C-alpha cells in the first residue's frame, strides 16, 4: 500500500513504453519492505514521497521544487544541484532532494561491477533513483540529503576512484560519441581526446574561474551523434582532408541489391530497388559525384564531407586517411539572445597526442572569455557581442572563407586606426581651409 494515492500517475503505467511510474512504484515498495535490511541514510519513504509530490504537480500543474539551494562538496564549485521541496510537511522524504552528478566514462561503456557498486552506494546514501544519463551526459544521482553529499563523494573517490561531474560556472562533464570504439566513420578517437582534455582541465571542471558554464563535446564525424554542434561551447567534430575511398566492387554490390542501402536503416518500408543515381549522386549537396558505366567517381575537391554517400553505402565508401577534426565554438540553448549552433573556428586540425595544438586553441579561447565575458555570458554570446573577428584576433587564427557561410552583406566595417593611412587625427581647421562651412 502506497503512502500517497497517485491516480494520475497510475495512468502512465499502461502502454508499451517503459513506465517510470512502474519502476518508481516497485522501488518504493522494495524500500518499504527493505528485505536486505539496508540502513538507509536518507528517509526510506523518499521514493513514495517523490511519487506523491509528482502526483501533486500533475494535479495542480506546477512544480513543487524550490529554487535551488547552494549546497555542494567542499572545494568544488559544481557537481551537486541543491533541491528542496516546497511542501516539506506533506512530503518529508523529499524535503531535501539534491542531485549529484557523477562523471560518466567516455562512450558510456560500463562493467556491471561498476554499476552495481554505484547502486550499492546510492541505495545506502540516496534515493535509489538515477538518471541514466543527464542531458550533458553525467550519471545523475537523483535525490539525497545535505549530510550525505560529502559521504557520497568520499565513497566515490575513495572506494570507486570516481569523481563528480560539472555544474555551475564550470567546465561541464565532456561527452563523446561512441566513435572508434564501434563506429567505422570515426575520424579520430573521441574517447581518447575527451578523456585527455577532461583530465587536463580538472581544475576548470571543479573550480569556477569562468563567467558561466562551458561545454566540450566530441563527435567522431559530421553525423554528429553526440549533437555537439548544438550543445557544446566547443565542439570537436571529426573530418578528413583527402579522398573518400571507393571500393567499386562493393558499389556494384549495392547497385545489384546485394548490400542493403544505408546498412538496412530503411528496411521497414519497401522503397523499391536501390537507385544509386537518385539516392546518392543526386542527393550529394555539391553534386560532385558521377555514376557512369558502372563506376562511381567523386570529385573530392568539391566534396563537403557531409557523410551522405558514405552512410548510404558504408561497405563501398570509406572516409579518407588524412584525418583530423574541425572545431566549432559557441553553441548554446536559447537563453538570453536565442539559441546558437557552433560556428566553425578551426576548419581542420590534426588530433594527435598530446593534443598540444588543440589545447592551445582552447586556452586562448578561455583566456579571452575569462577576460571579457560578463557574468552569465556564454562563449557564443561573447562572440556575438565582440565579433567573430575579435575571436580570431584573440586566438591568433588567420581568417579563412571557410569560417563563413557568406561574407557580410553590410559594409559596416570597424576599421582600426592603424589600418587606415594617416590615422584618425585630423585638423578641422586645416579641413575647413579647403571646405568652407
Amino acid at each position: 500500500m502506497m503512502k500517497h494515492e497517485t491516480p494520475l500517475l497510475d495512468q502512465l503505467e499502461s502502454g508499451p513504453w517503459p513506465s517510470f511510474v512502474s519502476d518508481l512504484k516497485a522501488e518504493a515498495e522494495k524500500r518499504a519492505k527493505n528485505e536486505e535490511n539496508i540502513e538507509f541514510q536518507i528517509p526510506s519513504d523518499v521514493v513514495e514521497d517523490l511519487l506523491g509530490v509528482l502526483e501533486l504537480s500533475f494535479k495542480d500543474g506546477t512544480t513543487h521544487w524550490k529554487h535551488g539551494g547552494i549546497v555542494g562538496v567542499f572545494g568544488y564549485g559544481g557537481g551537486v544541484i541543491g533541491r528542496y521541496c516546497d511542501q516539506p510537511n506533506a512530503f518529508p522524504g523529499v524535503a531535501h532532494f539534491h542531485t549529484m552528478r557523477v562523471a560518466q566514462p567516455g562512450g558510456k561503456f560500463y562493467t556491471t561491477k561498476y554499476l552495481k557498486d554505484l547502486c550499492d552506494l546510492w541505495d545506502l546514501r540516496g534515493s535509489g533513483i538515477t538518471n541514466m544519463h543527464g542531458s550533458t551526459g553525467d550519471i545523475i544521482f537523483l535525490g539525497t540529503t545535505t549530510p550525505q553529499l560529502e559521504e557520497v563523494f568520499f565513497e566515490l573517490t575513495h572506494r570507486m576512484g570516481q569523481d563528480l561531474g560539472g555544474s555551475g560556472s564550470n567546465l561541464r562533464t565532456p561527452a563523446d560519441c561512441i566513435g572508434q570504439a564501434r563506429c567505422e566513420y570515426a575520424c579520430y578517437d573521441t574517447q581518447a581526446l575527451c578523456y585527455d582534455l577532461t583530465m587536463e582541465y580538472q581544475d576548470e571542471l571543479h573550480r569556477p574561474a569562468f563567467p558561466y558554464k562551458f561545454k566540450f563535446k566530441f563527435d567522431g564525424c559530421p553525423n554528429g551523434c553526440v549533437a555537439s554542434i548544438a550543445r557544446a561551447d566547443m565542439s570537436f567534430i571529426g573530418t578528413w582532408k583527402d579522398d573518400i575511398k571507393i571500393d567499386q566492387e562493393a558499389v556494384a554490390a549495392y547497385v545489384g541489391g546485394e548490400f542493403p542501402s544505408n546498412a538496412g536503416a530503411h528496411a521497414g518500408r519497401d522503397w523499391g530497388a536501390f537507385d544509386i543515381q537518385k539516392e546518392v549522386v543526386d542527393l550529394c549537396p555539391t553534386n560532385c559525384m558521377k555514376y557512369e558505366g558502372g563506376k562511381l567517381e567523386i570529385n573530392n575537391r568539391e566534396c563537403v564531407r557531409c557523410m551522405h554517400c558514405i552512410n548510404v553505402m558504408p561497405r563501398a565508401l570509406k572516409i579518407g586517411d588524412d584525418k583530423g577534426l574541425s572545431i566549432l565554438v559557441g553553441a548554446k540553448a536559447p537563453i538570453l539572445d536565442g539559441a546558437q549552433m557552433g560556428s566553425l573556428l578551426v576548419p581542420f586540425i590534426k588530433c594527435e597526442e598530446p593534443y598540444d595544438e588543440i589545447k592551445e586553441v582552447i586556452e586562448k579561447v578561455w583566456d579571452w572569455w575569462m577576460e571579457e565575458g560578463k557574468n552569465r555570458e556564454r562563449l557564443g554570446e561573447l562572440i556575438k557581442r565582440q565579433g567573430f573577428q575579435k575571436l580570431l584576433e584573440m586566438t591568433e587564427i588567420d581568417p579563412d572563407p571557410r569560417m563563413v557561410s557568406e561574407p557580410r552583406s553590410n559594409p559596416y566595417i570597424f576599421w582600426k586606426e592603424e589600418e587606415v593611412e594617416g590615422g584618425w587625427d585630423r585638423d578641422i581647421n586645416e579641413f575647413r581651409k579647403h571646405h568652407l562651412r
Partner: protein
Amino acid sequence: MAFISSGYDPKEPMKNRITDIGPKKFDEFYPPVIAKNKGKWLYHEILEPGILVHVAEGGDEVYTVRCGGARIMTTSLIREICEIAEKHCDGYLRFTTRNNIEFMVDDKSKVDALKKDLAGRKFAGGSFKFPIGGTGAGITNIVHTQGWIHCHTPATDASGTVKATMDEVFSDFQNMRLPAPLRISMACCLNMCGAVHCSDIAILGYHRKPPMLDHEYLDKLCEIPLAIAACPTGAIKPTKVDLPSGETVKSVAVNNERCMFCGNCYTMCPSLPLADKDGDGIVLMAGGKVSNRISEPKFSKVVVAFLPNEVPRWPQMTDTIKKMIEAYAADAKKYERLGEWAERIGWERFFEKCELPFTHHLIDDFRDPAYYTWRQSTQFKF
C-alpha cells in the same frame, strides 16, 4: 536508522581528500571485442530494428541489441540490467547518447537468447522494461530533462510527456518505415536542457504569465541588480513597494507587456515565480536537425504556439505529433529529414499537410534576426 560514516570527517574535510580524479578511464569498460577492434571497424548493418552488427577488419563482429528505457531509472532496474549483461554479455554494456541501453555480444549465436530475454521482461503495470528498437529510419528514445520530478522552473513535466509520446509512437521505435531518422526531444522550460532547438520534433514546456512579485522577500532573497540584468527584454525595473505592514521595501516592477515569459529572472531570483496551471503548457517545434548529412544543421521552428498541460497523457500534444509524423511519413522522400521535407515543400504546405493552424504567434518578432524569417520574395505556393 544509524548514521554510517564513509570515513569522511566533517571537522577535517581535507584529510585524505581525493579530488580531481575525473571519470573512470573509458578503456576499463570496453568489452574485449571492442578493445581489440577499436579503430578497425569496417562496416555495420542493421539486421532488424534495434539490432546492429559491426564487422571489423580481421573479421571480428559485434552484435548490438539496443533497448529503449525511461532514463529515470531506479537502482533495482540498473541491477536488472546488470544481471542481463552478466548473463549474456560478460558483464559489459553501454548507454547511447540518447539514453538507450546497448547490450553487445561477440557472436551471432548469442543474439537470440538475449533478444528473447529482453523482450520478455515487463513492469508490473504491463509496459516493457527493455523494448528493442531505436535504430535506423525510425523514432528513437526521447532525450529529455527533469520536469516536475526535480526542477524548479519547468512549465510541464518531462517524464510524463515523454512516456505519453513514446507510447503513441511506439511502433516507430520498433520499425524503420520513416524516410529518415526522426529525433524527438523534450525540455521542460526554455533553458532547453536537451538540444530541443535542433530536433526533428521538440516538446517544450513554456510559461505564459509574467512573474509574480514576492515583494516582501524579494530584497532579502535576491540581488535586485542581477534580476534586472537577467531580463533579455529589459522588462524589469527597480522600485520601492509599501507592504501592507507599512514597511517600505526595495523590490522590482515588471513591465508585463515586454515579458516573454522566459523565466530568466526567476533563475536569478526565487521571488519571481512564473509557474501557473493555466499559463503553463507545451510549445511544439519541428524541423531541426544536428547532422551535417545532405543539408546543414537546422534549428527547430515553433509550429504550435501553445497546448495546455492535459495530464496525465497530453492527448492534444501526442495527436499533433502523430499528425506531423504521418504527414511526413506519407510525403517525404527517402533520406529526407523532417526539416528538409518542410523546406522542400515549403512551410505553407507543411501546415496544410499536417493540418495545423498557422497563427500570428508563429511569426518571429524577437529582435533583428526575425526579419530573416519573413519572406523576402514573391516565391510562395497558393
